[in-house]
């Protein structure tokens, strides 16, 4: 595919099967530079598989995938930190010798004063922040996130949403986020894609018009609720789809 610097990632006709089982079917999507795209869908619909294909961790059974040459960042469901390294060592893991960015990211995430601690001494939220810092320290053009905030309590999650938003503002990466929380998808993303159940395909797309920076009170506005409702209806309609 032609390299278009305005595009962070693109999938065309991607399909994938594990053995006999079809997991993804006719997936086409584009992530533009600087954009946050969220994917919602029922469990088992192949969202994680899709993300791994975009990351290059998995080669699809068919279709074309374009991703940035410099590679992608990936934030997993669990923090996936190296328990035997302290916070700052973990943060530095993927940085290409650039200490300044690491310190900056740690400061922004409120981890700077904890940088000599071991991961097990951090709370769940702090571990997730560190995981984000680690990925962003490599200055990826594209950040992939697989339900990163799912294990956290609501207060921490909302706080991290805003921190993520702030990081996105300052670092300017593109992101493809997979989540089962429609609230989260709408709050964070510029566009929300709806996937059907397995074999998954994109069955809906919603633009999120809310301006940035977004803050908590947005969650309680009627426009927000309406959009969430639309996405939800779309999801439920296709949830039983074969």
């Amino acid at each position: 595919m032609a390299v278009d610097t305005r595009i962070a990632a693109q999938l065309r006709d991607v399909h994938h099967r594990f053995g006999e089982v079809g997991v993804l079917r006719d997936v086409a999507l584009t992530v533009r530079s600087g954009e946050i795209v969220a994917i919602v869908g029922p469990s088992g619909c192949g969202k994680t598989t899709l993300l791994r294909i975009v990351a290059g961790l998995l080669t699809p059974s068919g279709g074309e995938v374009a991703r940035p040459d410099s590679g992608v960042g990936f934030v997993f469901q669990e923090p996936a930190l190296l328990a035997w390294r302290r916070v700052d060592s973990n943060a530095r893991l993927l940085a290409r010798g650039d200490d300044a960015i690491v310190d900056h990211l740690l400061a922004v995430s409120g981890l700077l004063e904890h940088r000599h601690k071991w991961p097990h001494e951090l709370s769940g939220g702090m571990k997730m922040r560190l995981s984000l810092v680690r990925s962003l320290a490599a200055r990826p053009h594209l950040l992939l996130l697989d339900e990163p905030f799912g294990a956290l309590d609501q207060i921490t999650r909302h706080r991290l949403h805003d921190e993520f938003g702030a990081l996105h503002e300052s670092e300017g990466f593109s992101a493809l986020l997979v989540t089962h929380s429609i609230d989260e998808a709408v709050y964070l993303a510029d566009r929300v894609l709806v996937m059907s159940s397995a074999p998954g395909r994109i069955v809906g797309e919603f633009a999120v018009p809310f301006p940035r920076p977004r803050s908590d009170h947005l969650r309680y506005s009627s426009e927000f609720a309406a959009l969430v409702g639309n996405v939800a209806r779309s999801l439920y309609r296709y949830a039983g789809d074969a």
Partner: protein
Amino acid sequence: MNEIRPPASPRTSAHRSPRLARLAPPLAAFGVVIAGWYGLAYSLDNNFASADGSALIIPPPHQLFVGLNAATVSRIASATWVSLGTAAVGFLLAILVGVVLGVAMSFSRSLESALWPWLIAVQVTPVIVLTPIIVRVVGASFTARLIVTVLIAFFPIASNTLFGMRSVGTALHDVFTLAGASRWHRLIHLQLPAASPAIFAGLRVSAGLAVIGAVVGDFFFTRGTPGLGRLITFFFQDTRSGPMFVTALIAALIGLCFFLAVAALRRLLVSPWHRP
């Protein structure tokens, strides 16, 4: 308004008792062992029927050092040197062999399925069966002693290394894959550190086994300076119970030291960051 006073801080009494409370159980156990030892020594018929009142079967604790003249101490020292050397070098070799085998098997399922039954076979085969073969091939040398020690001690390390290597989470592996890490890099910076708690669990067991291998294996190395194992039988033949027990205790102490060394290393390298 009356202030609600907090309860008086129990700091002063709590400050002293934890130290004592921690020491009490091991001291009590030690006391029970000593008491049992005395009980045994004094309940055995005719244990003290010798001409000088020394024990014929089991010396009580205060008689342990009877018979330790210069010549005997020198014999025990030589035997200790032999066994300690065998155990120490054997242990290090067992670590090397165990880790390499564990890592190799973790890389290749076919290697694992090929090797694993043989490793188990070596583990369960009594050493007395293997030692004559070893001695035939390499002679009754220090090398042979090392081989025997390694054979007895390596298995828990190999098995735990394999287990530890396999227990690294997929997400962590993905982090390294996405970063384009080489196989070597992944091994050194991800797999081995992640496996280290399991490896240390194996080291703990093998520390004792290495000493056992050195001391028991000594029975089959019947030329040259005897190690602690053979020396014990020599003392037995002369019914020198004091030196015999002292030698056995030294063997136990060596095992304890090895164990403590592993524990100390673990405290340094693993404990700070490890939470299962």
